[in-house]
């Protein structure tokens, strides 16, 4: 901590002299230019700040709507019942009025209690930017105080629902590394300007502290090769509040625009009712958006859409299958006369209608999902501001993510099968994630990392990376393939051990064997016993059943075959597409297959590395290489199977720190 006076000055300037420590020398009082103190240096004591008052009445509004819905649902049946009673007796039963009054009283009481609680928790909810840590105070009866040392901050994210957006407030999440569950700290209902200021302050103070500590070591190792000039958290000189349109940031290249950017821009510039002016939080060095095509393709390729497509495909397949069976049945049942035939002839049309309706419904759902994805990526913007990478998106619900370049664990280029067909990829940055702290978004979705572009042409990746994360310049270029033996092993592994087709075939064979051995003889016997009157009919039924069975069996067998062929193709693709590369500063691992994922991670983000072998691998003289980083929740392992033994040991040597 004890840097030279100039190094530690911004830190000591904004704070009263430490109580216990002896003061070394009277510090010069002129402000240092390299790291100017954060903005609010005027209050010497850190000041507790409250969140915006919409916290009270927005939660009140939410509670009101919720209780209203609940009450309507309970009250309407009650009232209807009473109405019925009224009608039966034909008289004037005053109870319905009473019920209404009771409901009103309940409503008011609930609202009153909510208002009280909201007010009290609002009074007790405050945050403070301390000397070395951020504090969040909360709790009405049992007081809670959360400390976040600035150095532990991983990323600062903002989120706003539509209502919040219209009002110009947002929820701020501060992700930290540490703790068992990496719980995020949530500061709800901050005015937009306050949120921006808070974000700025947090990053600036973190940077100041880090540079104070790293100052002694002359910023050793904290910047990798080709890093941009040292962090420049320049405070807005003079007026901290600037008009939103002041000084458009320098854009490199053409800014991509899409249909939804304009409304998003309007939404952003409106800043809501309480938003206040935009805060200039630093110069933007690189910025990009999404084109119409990219946005649309993002919507098109999202997972739910794909699943719906598959579902509709299955629906059509089964329908045609069913129709085929029906026609087959008609041929079999020639004996049974007109009656049955007429029934069967009419049914394919009905089936077709039903299937058509299902497919149409799925199509509509798919369109909706495309639309919602487009909306959620509307106004997408990723930019580099000083040392931070900021991504914002969302037309209705607004998301903002800010992460410091120091905290980026790796760059991930992911190509799902669809993206691969088009020659596109998803670009994301892995960081240490935190579980969302508030209960409102407890979805089990594990969004790992920060998507900096959801649908990017693969040829544009270097350009985007050079602009957004110039620290990742100088990635290794000469890749090493996996071992030759890996192909054989991959085919065995994918088609047999983890191959769906193989196991399905196995189950199928077992089931059909059981049927042939036990069920069919029993049926035959039953047919023979019950042969007295309707011999022909029973035989027919059994024949139809057998026909059904064999056809189903054939279709399933074909499915197994297709799956197994796909597995083999996948294995070959994996073998062709998987490789790894490393140089002085970076490791790059690509795992291929139908989809492809390439992870680039700086060497200094690798926590530890290990190789792993099972007996078969040892016989084939290959090893699995694993690099572990702190990304995600509790760490992530980057893995490549079946690397040549000698190469793997060489790689493990590379993990060792250099002398």
């Amino acid at each position, binding site marked *: 901590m004890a840097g030279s006076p100039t190094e530690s000055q911004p830190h000591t300037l904004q704070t009263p002299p430490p109580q216990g420590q002896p003061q070394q020398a009277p510090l010069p009082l002129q402000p240092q230019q390299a790291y100017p103190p954060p903005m609010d240096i005027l209050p010497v004591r850190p000041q507790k700040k409250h969140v915006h008052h919409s916290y009270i009445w927005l939660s009140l509004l939410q509670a009101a709507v919720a209780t209203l819905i609940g009450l309507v649902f309970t009250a309407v049946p009650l009232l209807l019942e009473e109405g019925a009673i009224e009608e039966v007796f034909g008289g004037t039963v005053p109870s319905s009025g009473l019920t209404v009054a009771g409901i009103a009283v309940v409503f008011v009481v609930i609202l009153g209690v909510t208002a009280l609680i909201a007010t009290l928790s609002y009074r007790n909810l405050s945050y403070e930017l301390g000397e070395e840590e951020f504090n969040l105070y909360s709790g009405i009866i049992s007081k809670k105080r959360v400390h976040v040392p600035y*150095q*532990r901050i991983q990323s600062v994210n903002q989120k706003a629902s539509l209502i919040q957006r219209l009002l110009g407030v947002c929820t701020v999440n501060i992700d930290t590394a540490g703790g068992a569950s990496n719980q995020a700290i949530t500061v709800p209902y901050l005015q937009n300007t306050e949120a921006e200021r808070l974000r700025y302050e947090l990053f600036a103070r973190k940077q100041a502290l880090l540079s104070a500590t790293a100052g002694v070591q002359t910023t050793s190792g904290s910047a990798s090769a080709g890093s941009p000039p040292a962090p420049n958290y320049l405070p807005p000189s003079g007026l901290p509040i600037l008009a939103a349109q002041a000084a458009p940031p320098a854009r490199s290249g053409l800014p991509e625009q899409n249909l939804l950017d304009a409304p998003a821009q309007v939404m952003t510039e409106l800043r809501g009712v309480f938003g206040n002016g935009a805060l200039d939080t630093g110069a933007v060095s690189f910025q990009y958006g999404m084109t119409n095509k990219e946005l649309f393709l993002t919507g098109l390729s999202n997972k739910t859409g794909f699943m719906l497509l598959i579902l509709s495909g299955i629906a059509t397949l089964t329908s045609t299958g069913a129709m085929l069976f029906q026609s087959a049945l008609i041929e079999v049942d020639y004996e049974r006369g007109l009656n049955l035939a007429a029934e069967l002839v009419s049914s394919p049309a009905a089936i077709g209608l039903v299937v058509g309706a299902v497919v149409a419904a799925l199509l509509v759902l798919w369109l909706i999902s495309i639309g919602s994805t487009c909306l959620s990526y509307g106004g997408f913007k990723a930019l580099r501001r000083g040392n931070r990478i900021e991504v914002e998106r969302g037309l209705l619900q607004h998301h903002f993510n800010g992460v410091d370049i120091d905290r980026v664990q790796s760059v991930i280029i992911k190509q799902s099968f669809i993206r691969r067909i088009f020659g596109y990829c998803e670009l994301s940055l892995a960081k*240490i994630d935190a579980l969302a702290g508030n209960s409102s978004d407890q979805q089990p979705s594990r969004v790992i990392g920060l998507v900096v572009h959801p649908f990017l042409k693969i040829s544009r990746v270097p350009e985007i990376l050079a602009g957004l994360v110039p620290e990742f310049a100088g990635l290794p270029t000469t890749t090493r393939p996996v071992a030759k033996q890996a192909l054989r092993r991959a085919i065995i592994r994918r088609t047999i051990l983890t191959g769906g087709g193989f196991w399905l075939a196995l189950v199928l064979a077992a089931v059909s064997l059981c049927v042939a051995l036990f069920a069919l003889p029993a049926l035959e016997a039953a047919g023979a016993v019950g042969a007295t009157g309707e011999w022909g009919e029973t035989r027919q039924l059994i024949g139809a059943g057998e026909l059904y069975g064999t056809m189903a069996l054939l279709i399933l067998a074909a499915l197994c075959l297709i799956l197994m062929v796909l597995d083999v193709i996948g294995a070959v693709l994996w073998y062709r597409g998987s490789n790894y590369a490393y140089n002085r500063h970076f490791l790059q691992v690509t795992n291929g297959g139908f989809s492809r994922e390439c992870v680039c991670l700086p060497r*200094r983000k690798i926590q530890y590395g290990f190789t792993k072998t099972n007996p078969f691998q040892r016989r084939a003289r290959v090893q699995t290489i694993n690099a572990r980083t702190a990304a995600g929740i509790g*760490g*992530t392992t980057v893995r490549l199977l079946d690397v040549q033994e000698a190469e793997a040991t*060489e790689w493990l040597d590379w993990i060792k720190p250099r002398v």
Partner: protein
Amino acid sequence: MTELPAHQLNPKITWVWRISDALTITLVFFLCAIPFFCVYAFEGEQWALLVSAVCVACYLLALIIFLAVVPPIRFRRWRYELTSDYLDIARGILWRKRFIIPFIRVQNTDTRQGPVLRAFNLASVTVSTAAGRHEIPGLDTAVAEQLRNRAAELARIAQEDV
């Protein structure tokens, strides 16, 4: 690099493994077998006796494997080495793993001593990084303390932020 790390654990660790494994296996055995045995004892069901007999057989088999067969192999496979800037661990019987843990990534180190370990005058050293921890289980208490101190000293150069 193909050669294994230099140091082995204290041979007494095999007895620690035996004792703790025996305790675990016995616990699991009782949890599995007692309900069936009760069914047999109170209801007189023959099949329950059969199931408990199978449990006993499994128990004995597990005991033989984990008391006689596994510990010496595990001991032979478990090796570690502390160089000036990284920790090298090789372990595993079927799935063999080789770890390289640079000290600049180690966030903290500590020694631990459970009751079984203490009975044998052993201790374990744990080395934690931001993405997981590693334990060197059976070391002489003095060696463990020495190792921990050295690891802590080496880890002092670690960067706090990840």
